[in-house]
């Protein structure tokens, strides 16, 4: 890998031990992935939750602070394992809040904006076309690449902060424009497209669609045709949620939506390869996806959750409208996740109160994924959710079982205690 003078200076320790440490790692990464050079970094997004990083992660960040590390680019952070506004509503294991607080303290020292959000692309750290990212968080990186035309891999939680401290990152994967071309083709049946989404169904439908696309494409860049032009932000957020639980890459070339995919030809970098691997997505595929996402047939639910990725203000309005004057059934917990910024707006709009009056809880800064779910809910718990991502990531031995349905289905389950899916049956 060719290093610039600035890279060499940083590698030689002229900008301090934190920068040198970071550069040493980045050079090894670049060599492993055959990068030819480093590029300037423009934006960073880091992992925050203690549940995932554990004691090692905490020590990692504190070490960077000790070495005098500071983020050289605008930096935000993912949700954490705590909701400061609702600490009493959850049963955190001993030592959790203290350690999570130490992570926040380290972030302040490093100059990380304390956003605790998995949707930085919608509000706190919006990337631009052509910008170089070192971001954790699949849905965010997916959206940034696919919808905004920014450039970044789903960076791991070690490399992302180190790149931010060095201000540089090796150019490989999606940071290299040459790799931003389609490798397979997904065609959406127009009849399916007409039926997809709408109020109360948007999130579940488009997350399921994202999963179908992601499972097919897996480690390839899919070119997707048949979507509407001018898809809503919430629809695209839901599709891009597939980047991590299904698609391991982070770029979907959505023809008519992605700035780099004005036409299907442009998406393939010239001509559509004649023997390109194709997938046709119709209503049957959608039905199967919904089925696949339930791992129990039990009707009685204990927990209902929505907001993975975090809910936008419009989705919170949608929840409030679906709840109407109903109240959540005794013994059922209905948890809606969003970030502190959206929570501030929701409060000003009276939505937080409306949700609380119904007996549901709008949390900030955290989600089920960041919580020790085995400890909190245990394996007998049945969770209903409209999130494909949460369902895929947080299911497994010793964990709760899941039912998958639309927001309408989930809200009804919260009100009645019974999950009775009404969509794609």
């Amino acid at each position, binding site marked *: 890998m060719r290093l610039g003078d600035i890279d060499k200076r940083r590698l030689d320790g002229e900008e301090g031990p934190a920068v040198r440490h970071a550069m040493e790692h980045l050079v090894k990464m670049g060599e492993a992935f055959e990068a030819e050079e480093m590029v300037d970094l423009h934006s960073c997004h880091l992992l925050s939750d203690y549940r995932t990083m554990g004691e090692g992660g905490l020590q990692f960040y504190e070490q960077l602070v000790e070495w005098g590390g500071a983020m050289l680019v*605008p930096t935000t952070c993912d949700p954490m394992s705590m909701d400061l506004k609702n600490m009493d509503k959850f049963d955190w294991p001993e030592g959790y809040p203290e350690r999570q607080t130490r992570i926040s303290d380290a972030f302040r020292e490093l100059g990380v904006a304390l956003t605790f959000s998995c949707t930085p692309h919608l*509000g706190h750290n*919006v990337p*631009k076309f052509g910008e170089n990212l070192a971001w954790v968080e699949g849905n965010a990186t997916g959206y940034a690449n696919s919808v905004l035309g920014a450039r970044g891999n789903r960076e791991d939680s070690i490399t992302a902060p180190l790149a931010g401290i060095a201000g540089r990152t090796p150019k490989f994967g999606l940071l290299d424009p040459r790799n931003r071309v389609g490798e397979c083709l997904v065609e959406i049946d127009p009849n399916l497209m007409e039926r997809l989404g709408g109020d109360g169904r948007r999130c579940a439908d488009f997350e399921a669609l994202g999963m179908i696309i992601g499972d097919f494409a897996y480690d390839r860049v899919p070119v997707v045709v048949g979507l509407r*032009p001018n898809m809503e932000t919430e629809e695209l957020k839901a599709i891009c949620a597939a980047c991590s639980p299904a698609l391991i890459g982070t770029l979907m070339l959505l023809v008519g939506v992605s*700035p780099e995919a004005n036409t299907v030809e442009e998406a393939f970098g010239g001509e559509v390869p004649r023997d390109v691997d194709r997938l046709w997505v119709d209503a049957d595929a959608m039905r199967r996806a919904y089925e696949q996402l339930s791992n129990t047939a039990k009707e009685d639910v204990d927990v209902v959750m929505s907001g993975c990725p975090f809910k936008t*203000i419009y989705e919170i309005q949608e929840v409030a409208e679906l709840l109407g004057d109903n109240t959540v059934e005794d013994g059922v917990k209905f948890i809606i996740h969003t970030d*502190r*910024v959206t929570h501030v707006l929701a409060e000003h709009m009276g939505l937080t109160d409306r949700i609380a009056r119904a007996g549901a809880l709008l949390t900030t800064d955290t989600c089920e994924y960041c919580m020790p779910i085995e400890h909190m809910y245990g394996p007998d718990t049945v969770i209903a959710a409209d999130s494909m991502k949460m369902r895929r990531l947080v299911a497994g031995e010793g964990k709760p079982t899941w039912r998958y349905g639309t927001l309408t289905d989930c809200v009804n389950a919260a009100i009645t205690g019974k999950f009775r899916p009404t969509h794609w049956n």
Partner: protein
Amino acid sequence: MNLTDADKRKLDGGEGRAVQHAMEHLVKMGEAFDAEEMVDLHTVHVFSDYRTVGDGGVNFYENLVNMGGHISLPSSCEPMSMDRNHNDQFDWPDGYEEGQQKIVDALATLGVQPTFSCTHYLNANVPKFRSNMAWVEGNATGFANTVIGARGNREDAVTSPLAGIARRIPKYGMLDPGNRVGDCLVQIDPHLIERIGGEGRRTADFEALGAVIGDFAYDRIPVVTGLPDYMQNEELKALVTACSPAMTTTLMLLVGISPEARTLEEAFGGKVPKDVDTIRVTEDDLREMYGKLEQTTKEDVDIVISGCPFKTLQEVQELTQQLGARKVADGVQFYIFTDRITFNMAEDMGLVDKIEAAGALLTTDTCSWCMPVETMFGPDKVIASDSMKMRRLLAGDGKPTWRYGTLTDVVDAAVTGKFKPRRWN
């Protein structure tokens, strides 16, 4: 203008009086600007401040509420004439708070997200490539068109909410892709680029550069070459601030940055016209612009203002670093403007405390532009600011006089009470 069946239904009152009222206005607008059709609208940003819209504006919004109007699209609103966190720090004229409250209430009923921000495109209502917008606010519309590739005119304060209610807008100006091509050429001298911007100088330099470009382009679309490959949000925000105090259009085609100007040729829609009107911008032009923005040579300042457009979190950080451990001089007021979202993050990061300890004020939801500066500050006051926009919009008979300098200069002025510009001298 060709109206669809859906348009006609709206115009005939099939969706209620408010939608009909809105459509009637939009049809007249479309006819006046020779639009051939209406297009779907995707995002709205409306006016809020009582100082500008007055009681006519109150009547206008309340009338929309009475007609049952609702904006069911992603939306946001401009800063207002009030800072609920610090109302005691300002001397509002009689009736202001009441008038403003009526607008706040009406906007809430209309379903507008209470952002009270002129930089909502960075944190609350982020448009996408090709989104159709009905936005007021020049810097925002400029950024959205120029940097994101969304489509919208700087819509007037009447048409914007009406379009939001109708969810349609006549396709004219920047909403028509056929008009999004360059009309004139701006070449930035490489020596200037080497010297421009940097810590403490970013806003003033790039706002001044924007004014040079905007004064030249005026009602044409400038194609700008010679900018760095990558520009920070703060630099771009400052540059496009020219859309309103200098340029009457809202699109700058920044070659290598705008998604629609990947090359010089693309920016001109194919080929650079042989006789295209061209300017070359050098250090001398920037020096001259700094001079033009000064209205007085008085050194003693009464008020120091920064944050037009609203400060980002990074800029609030920059400002606290510039202040360091220093204190604002007795008798000098130092106002820093931002929105409630950024304020909340700044609070979490401990920046608000630092600013207050220095004797400066970080406000939310409002700015000097939304205040009656004649009554609040009076004509013998001297204001130092790093905002070209504020300086151009708020100078004139019976108003305070202005000095223009970098953030470093204005922070020093706040601390010493003396404005001693050091930039481009």
